[in-house]
């Protein structure tokens, strides 16, 4: 494995509910290599999204720490990380341009510079001409393109993606997967991509970590061997189907004996 960019060490998290404490993560550790595309795969609601939010610093773990470039960043957002959310979470009161420029505005970048950069990214995700639109005037796929551009605008070292295509229809999802790969191919960032789609994980990632149902624990850690750049043909490789079947089996085993 290449040099470690991001390490999660012995993280635990439980949520308080009216009926008591619900453990979501118990003593989980994870290493992410520099410029690695890592997929966290698991059934819905297993706690992988919580793990991603802990990595981003949005959620404070009950114990354990998040180390980035050797620095303890537990519970701290920013620091070269940027997140793409499952429900897009664009600001409805900002135009596409100002949504994309949001992270730069937070950093105090002046208006002209941040708009220039935002325009470039909007063009990169194929939304040129929509700079002045408001999010609700766009389709779901277009909104998530804005979400991706917003995250890339701050030029993060680490891109965190929380089931970013989960809310989109199948066609749009595949188009966006290819676009994401295209962008990543040009400028390889460290990516942590949460999904419950086996095929999506295999198609996008260098490595797939598979989680059990809640509380999440690692069932398997697989390296994805398919060559890059990947394309539609990758999905038709016999090895792709074989791996998909294998992962399906692992997930089925992990889900056994649970309600």
């Amino acid at each position, binding site marked *: 494995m290449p040099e470690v960019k991001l390490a999660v060490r012995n993280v635990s998290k439980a949520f308080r509910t009216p009926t008591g404490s619900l453990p979501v993560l118990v003593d989980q550790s994870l290493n992410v290599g520099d410029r690695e595309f890592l997929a966290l795969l698991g059934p819905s609601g297993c706690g992988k999204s919580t793990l991603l939010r802990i990595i981003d610093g949005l959620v404070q773990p009950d114990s354990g720490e998040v180390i980035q470039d050797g620095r303890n960043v537990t519970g701290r957002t920013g620091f070269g990380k940027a997140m793409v959310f499952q429900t897009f979470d664009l600001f409805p009161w900002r135009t596409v341009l100002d949504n994309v420029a*949001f992270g730069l505005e937070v950093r105090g970048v002046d208006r002209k510079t941040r708009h220039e950069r935002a325009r470039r990214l909007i063009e990169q995700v194929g939304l040129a001409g929509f700079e002045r639109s408001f999010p609700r005037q766009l389709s779901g796929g277009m909104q998530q393109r804005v979400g991706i551009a917003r995250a890339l605008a701050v030029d993060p070292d680490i891109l965190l993606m929380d089931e970013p295509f989960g809310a989109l229809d199948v066609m749009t999802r595949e188009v966006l997967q290819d676009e994401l790969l295209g962008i990543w191919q040009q400028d390889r960032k460290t990516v942590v991509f949460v999904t419950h789609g086996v095929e999506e994980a295999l198609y996008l990632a260098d490595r797939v970590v598979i989680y059990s149902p809640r509380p999440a624990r690692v069932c398997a850690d697989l390296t994805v061997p398919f060559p890059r750049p990947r394309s539609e043909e990758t999905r038709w490789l016999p090895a792709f189907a074989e791996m998909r079947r294998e992962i399906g089996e692992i997930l089925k085993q992990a889900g056994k004996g649970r309600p």
Partner: protein
Amino acid sequence: MAESSPFRSAGRLGSLAGIAIALVVWEVAGRAAGSARFAPFSEVAREFLTVLGDGLTLPALGSSLLQMLVGYGAGLAVGVPLGVLMGRQAWADRAFQPWVSMMVVTSTAALVPLLIVLFGTGFWFRTAVVFLATVWYVVITTYQGARGIDPRYLGAARSFGAGGWQTFRMVHLPALFPYLITGASVGLVHAIRAMVMAEMYVLIGFGGRLQQTGLSISTAPLLCYLLLLMLVGVVATGGLRWIGGRLAPWYEEARA
């Protein structure tokens, strides 16, 4: 809002028809009742021109409204931060909730005798009445807005490293904006109500003139005053909505 234009013009036509029918009914009822009891519209319309030109009524209305703006402004200045605080902080919610619910149900008119004892009948009295009539409605509206801010937007802002002040400026304020406009216009309706009531009680300003017109032989001048007040209310609240739409284009969109 999503209606296409022919429907929209049909709506406008229906509204015009509603106004026309009301005016006809007014005219017929007025002629039947006689102007001592209910002056017909034609007479009131003629009177309206006289009242507009008499050089007394409009200045009286203007200065009453200017004075009202002080209490109304104070109501917004206190109500908005208090509403936001209550909506975002559980302790503030609990601490102020009983007082707000008490004050909202308390009639402004019932406060008038007490306020006269406290402030006399001058500027401070009227300002206090308007303030007390406005502030609680602004608090309630802002409170609902502040409570309802989607945590996803707060999360996204925090994820990009926004600090407390930045989050307030870039998320809380725009998310609150529609509620601020609604609160300001509901507050304005209550401020105008309170202004007229206070002035009628102490026979001063526009409200005082209105109260005294009730003693004249014809009801035409009185009905003129009522029409004027209606116009002021409709124009003021409509104007606030328009400003809201201009300042926040996404808001108009959101209601479509």
